[in-house]
């Protein structure tokens, strides 16, 4: 039990006023160097901590603290960890998933929001917050006819501040572009990193799929759309450096699969890849156990592992150690390196979520596209 809770409970059940004072005085969850105590307050029959840490039981029961309406559980959590969670509350036969009402930190994702536990020494990087000195880039929606998909597809284009037609820019194409914008603060990150000279001003194309589990799972139509339709459109309409080493493709989860698959099918298009928590499931023999959505992924990754070729020159990869995909990502690194690709791989104490991917953007983008910081002495 956490020291502060022990103090509260040392003389038996505290009065409600003492519990009120305790709750008002603490930041929740209670974070120590090596562990975290999650505290829930309220009437309930059972309370569980639901988290997404691969390797720990998904639902950890909280213990009721006798004579109070407090519930608590302590779990091991190494320094610099960041995890997302909810409470599963059983009350009068009903189950509900709730955000932690005592914790102001939340992370959003396409499915809603989670509470965020900032482990010991984790700090949100300051370059992910809006900097008043950073000039903002602009966004404009474009639409193009896709023969591959037989329909019009929208793409949002980010142009950096101080954009000039007479200059030429590197190009970054992003899978799940809107999710990166909404949940990973991509526009803030781009504005800040460009302002800090850590990446060069660049043109960014944000793509979105209406059926990502299918189109991102090693679908040739998607790869062809990116390389034979979107890329020529961008080259024709924007002042981008028309050379593979000035072009990067990125994505997370299934978006990373789509990134790798596109570069593998069209190896001369993008020399730079940014792969975050790739869903690189494979089977050495027999079937996999990840469900039918992964069938085409496994088929592609199995083939890729047999014949990797050289989809890109430089690849940045990251994965959270609390993800079930950590082993697949780890095993991808030596495979890529042994085929003469320059790989930078980062593991972090986080899970499969958009803020993990946000926090890695600085290292990844600046490694793929080093900014003029090297050249600037002010």
């Amino acid at each position, binding site marked *: 039990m956490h020291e502060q809770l022990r103090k509260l409970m040392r003389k038996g059940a505290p009065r409600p006023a003492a519990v009120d004072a305790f709750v008002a005085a603490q930041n929740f969850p209670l974070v120590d160097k090596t562990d975290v105590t999650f505290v829930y307050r309220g009437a309930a029959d059972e309370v569980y901590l639901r988290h997404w840490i691969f390797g720990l039981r998904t639902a950890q029961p909280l213990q009721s603290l006798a004579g109070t309406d407090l519930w608590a559980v302590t779990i091991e959590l190494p320094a610099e960890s960041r995890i997302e969670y909810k409470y599963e509350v059983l009350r009068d036969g009903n189950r509900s998933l709730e955000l932690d009402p005592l914790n102001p930190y939340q992370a959003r994702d396409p499915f809603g929001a989670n509470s965020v536990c900032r482990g010991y020494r984790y700090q949100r990087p300051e370059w992910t917050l809006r900097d008043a000195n950073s000039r903002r880039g602009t966004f404009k929606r474009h639409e193009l006819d896709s023969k591959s998909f037989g329909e019009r597809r929208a793409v949002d284009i980010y142009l950096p501040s101080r954009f000039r037609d007479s200059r030429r820019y590197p190009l970054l194409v992003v899978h799940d572009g809107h999710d990166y914008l909404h949940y990973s603060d991509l526009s803030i990150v781009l504005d800040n990193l460009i302002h800090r000279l850590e990446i060069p001003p660049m043109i960014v194309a944000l793509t979105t799929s209406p059926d990502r589990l299918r189109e991102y799972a090693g679908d040739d139509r998607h790869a062809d759309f990116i390389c034979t339709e979107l890329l020529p459109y961008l080259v024709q309409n924007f002042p981008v450096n028309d050379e593979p080493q000035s072009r990067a493709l990125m994505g997370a989860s299934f978006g990373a699969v789509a990134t790798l698959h596109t570069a593998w099918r069209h190896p001369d298009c993008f020399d730079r890849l940014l792969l975050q928590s790739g869903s690189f499931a494979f089977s050495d023999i027999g079937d996999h156990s990840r469900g039918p959505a992964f069938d085409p992924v496994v088929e592609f990754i199995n083939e890729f592992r047999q014949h990797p070729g050289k989809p890109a020159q430089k690849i940045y990869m990251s994965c959270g150690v609390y993800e079930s995909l950590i082993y697949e990502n780890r095993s991808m690194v030596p495979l890529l390196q042994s085929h003469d690709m320059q790989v930078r791989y980062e593991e972090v104490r986080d899970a499969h979520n958009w803020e993990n991917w946000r926090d890695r953007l600085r290292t990844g983008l600046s490694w793929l596209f080093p900014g003029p910081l090297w050249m600037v*002495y*002010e």
Partner: protein
Amino acid sequence: MTAAKLNGRVALLGPQSRTASLTSALKKLGAEGPFGVITAGWRDAEGEIDTLTEHLGKPVIDLALYERVEDIFASDPSLFAAHRERQDKLKQLQRLYRVRLKAGAEACYRLMRRKEDTELLKPQLRAAISQLRALDRFHARQLAGMHASFDASIRPAERTTVRRHRQELEQQLRDLGTVLIAGGHVAVLASRLRLLGMADLLATHPLAGWSAGAMLLTRQLVLFHDRAPQGRREPELLDVGLGRARGIIALPAASQRLDIDSREHLTLMARRFAPARCMTLDDGAWMAMSDDVLVGAAGVRRIRRTGSLAKVKAHA
């Protein structure tokens, strides 16, 4: 003291944003206005001359090099295309140089960490550093060759717009004393100085430069940054500067950019560029030189061959 008597005098300074040491350095030089200023002009803030005028309390004339070159490019598309092609080739050349540099430096560091008999180790390390020095010389020759070939085929000095801007600059400089070179993008500054043939135009003027401007006063422009988010990169030779402070490698904001606790990095830097002396120019630091002799300094440190830092004192 008049500006004419200051021929050959230069001042190299660290960043001026937090601690403005420009007036101290100019006072030591005996430099007087009216001042001319050269900026990289590539970000809006650098075009602002007002702060400088206010700080110096004297008129400062913007030589508008950035705008002049933009005008040249706009009016001479073939020169612009050739310039762009050369810049692309320079980038490629730098990338290729970096491949060899990384491997060569890594060999030096690995040797520095070995524990074998010193008698056996020393000559190996000396030879490894010597190879790096040879690589830097080779790279310098490659760069010079590329610039010479550009000058021979494109003849920028004979282009109408370039000639006009040079004449205007010549006229402006006649009325100016000391010329200041601001910090900024060192490659942008270097390429604009080169295109306008500023080395000749500035030959008799006292010069004072801070940060990138200080680097440009030296002969060897050495890029460095140990703390970039993508990781450390080995210091690399970019180009040749105006050469007015010979024998100096200028390292602006060294405390922020260099890992000064890394003896092996600093040792290699000092030995690789010797006999040139690697000088740190942090906020507020400055050094004044006359005909390559140090005549005044404050806050400047030299990197010794052992990787330690020594305070620099003027001889006169």
